[in-house]
C-alpha cells in the first residue's frame, strides 16, 4: 500500500518536471509565433511577450521580399531535395542491390569505398568542389547543386538500404530467377516495391538534410536563380539582425516543409533509428 502510494507521488513529480521542461522547450516557438505578426515598431517598443496589437504580416512579407528572394530559394530547395534526393537514392538503391543481392565480387570493399563518404567532415570537400565547379561551369547552376546533393546523400543511403536488404529473405528472388526474370526486372518489380518503407524513410531524412544545408548552398551559388532557401535566409543576417518580425516570419515559412515531414514521419522515426544504431 505504502509502496504504490510512493510510486504514484514519484510519477507525478516526474510528470511535473517534464511539463516545466516542455514549456521551456516550446517557449522559443511561442516567441516566434507571437512576434512574427507584429510590426517592427511594436516589437522594438513593447515587451516581446505581449500579444500582438497589430497584424502586420503583409508589411513583414513585403520587407522580406525586398531583402531576399525567398520564393525562388524555396523553389530551388524543393527542386534540390526532390531531384538531388531522388537521384542519389536511386543510385544508392542500385548499389545496395548489387552488393547484397547480386553478390558482386569484393562487395564489402565496394561498400566501404562508398561508405567512406560519410566519415569525413564536409569542410574537406568544399574547396575542391568549389574550384572544380568554377572550371567546368557548374558553379551557380541548378544542375551543379543537384549533382553535389545527390553525391553527398549516397553513402548513408547505401548504408540504410543495404541493412534493409540484409534482413530480407531471398526466396522470392530465387523463384523469380527460376521463372526467368532478369536481374533488373527483379530490382524494379520485386525489390523496389518491397523496400518502399526504408526508401521513403531515407528520402524524408535526406530531403530534410538538403533543405537544411547552408554550407554548400552558400559556397556554390551566388545568384538567386540557383541559391537554395537556407543560403537565401542566411543573408538576412543573424549577427546583425535588424528587423526581427520579418525574420521570424521567414523562419516560420521556410520551416514549414521540414515540419510537415516531421509530422508525417514521427511515428516511423524510432523504427528508422533502430536500424541506424543497431
Amino acid at each position, binding site marked *: 500500500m505504502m509502496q504504490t502510494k510512493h510510486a504514484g507521488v514519484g510519477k507525478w513529480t516526474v510528470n511535473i518536471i517534464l511539463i516545466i521542461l*516542455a514549456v521551456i522547450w516550446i517557449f522559443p516557438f511561442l516567441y516566434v509565433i507571437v512576434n512574427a505578426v507584429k510590426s517592427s515598431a511594436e516589437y522594438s517598443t513593447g515587451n516581446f*511577450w505581449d500579444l500582438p496589437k497589430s497584424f502586420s504580416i503583409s508589411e513583414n512579407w513585403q520587407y522580406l521580399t525586398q531583402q531576399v528572394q525567398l520564393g525562388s530559394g524555396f523553389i530551388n530547395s524543393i527542386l534540390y531535395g526532390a531531384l538531388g534526393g531522388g537521384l542519389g537514392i536511386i543510385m544508392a538503391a542500385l548499389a545496395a542491390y548489387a552488393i547484397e543481392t547480386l553478390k558482386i565480387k569484393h562487395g564489402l570493399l565496394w561498400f566501404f569505398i562508398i561508405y567512406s563518404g560519410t566519415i569525413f567532415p564536409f569542410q574537406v570537400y568544399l*574547396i575542391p568542389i568549389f574550384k572544380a565547379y568554377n572550371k567546368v561551369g557548374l558553379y551557380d547552376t541548378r544542375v551543379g547543386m543537384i*549533382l553535389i546533393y545527390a553525391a553527398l546523400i549516397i553513402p548513408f543511403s547505401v548504408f540504410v538500404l543495404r541493412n534493409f536488404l540484409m534482413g530480407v529473405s531471398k526466396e522470392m528472388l530465387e523463384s523469380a530467377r527460376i521463372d526467368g526474370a532478369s536481374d533488373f526486372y527483379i530490382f524494379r518489380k520485386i525489390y523496389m516495391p518491397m523496400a518502399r518503407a526504408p526508401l521513403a524513410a531515407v528520402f524524408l531524412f535526406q530531403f530534410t538534410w538538403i533543405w537544411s544545408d547552408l554550407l554548400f548552398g552558400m559556397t556554390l551559388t551566388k545568384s538567386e536563380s540557383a541559391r537554395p532557401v537556407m543560403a537565401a535566409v542566411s543573408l538576412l543576417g543573424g549577427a546583425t539582425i535588424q528587423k526581427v518580425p520579418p*525574420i521570424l516570419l521567414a*523562419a516560420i515559412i521556410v520551416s514549414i516543409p521540414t515540419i510537415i515531414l516531421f509530422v508525417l514521419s514521427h511515428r516511423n522515426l524510432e523504427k528508422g533509428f533502430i536500424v541506424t544504431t543497431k
Partner: protein
Amino acid sequence: MKRANGWRNYLYIAPAVLFVFCFCILSIIFTLFISFTDWTGLGRFKFVGFSNYVAVFQDKNFLLSCINTLVWVAAGLIIPVVFPLLFAIAITKSSFSTLFKNIFYFPNAVSGVIVGLIMTSLLSMYGLPQLLGMLGFENLDKNWLNIPYVNTGVMIGASVWQGIGMNMLLFIIGLVNMPTEPIEAAKMEGASGIGLYTKIILPLLKPTIIVVVLMSLVNSFKTFDSIWIMTGGGPYRTSETLAVTMYKETFSNNHLGMGSAIAVMLSVIILFISIFYLRKTFTREGSH
C-alpha cells in the same frame, strides 16, 4: 549464365561509386595536397611543407579557435549525453511519454540556420535579456551574443536546445528494448532507485551510450551553421571554431592552403573518433 552476367552486375554499382569517387575521394586527395601549399586560389602552387599546420598552433586567433572548438567538444560530451539520458529515463516513466517525446524532439525538425535566426533575436537586445532585466536582473540585460566567451556558452545552450531530442530518442529506444530478465532479477534481490541504474541499467545501456557519445563528439567538431548565423565567429573572432575559421580563411581571406590544412585536421580528428564508431557498427559484419 551467371558468369555471362558478371560484368553487368557492376553497372549497378558504377554510378554510386563514380559519384562518391569524383565528389568525395578526389576532393579529399586534392584538399590534402593543397594543405601543403600557400595557394590563394589563383596562379601556381608553392609547397610550404607543414607550415600551415604549425601556424594553427602559433597564431593567437587560430589557437583561440582551437580552444573554442575544444570547449564545444567538452560541452558536447557532457550536456548532450547526460541530459538526454535523464530526459529519456523520466519520459519512459511518465504518463504522457509520446507527447513529451515529440515536444523535445521537435526542434530537430528546424534547421541550424533557422535555430540561429530565432536564437539571435531571442538572445539579443529585445529578447530574453530584456525580459530578465525587467524581472530585476539588470546586469543580464545585454546582448549576450556580443560578449566574448559568454557568447560561446550561450550558443552551446542553443545547440543543446535543438539537438537534445535526437540523443534522447536513441536512449529511449535503448531503454525500451532492454532485456528485462537482469532488471527483474536485480529487483528481486532488493535493488532499486539509483543503485538499480548504476549497477544494472546503465551497463546494459552501454552500447547506446557509446554511439551517442561518439555522435555528439563528431557533431561538436563540425558545428558551423548556428555559429555562422548567430555571431559569424565574432566579435573580433572570439567565438570562432575550427569549422568557422576554415570557411573564413578559404572564402574571405583566400588562404586556400590554410583552409585546407584546417579541414584536414578536422578530418583526422573525426576519422579517429569514427574508427571507434565504425568498429562498433561493423563488428557484426565478421559473422557474415
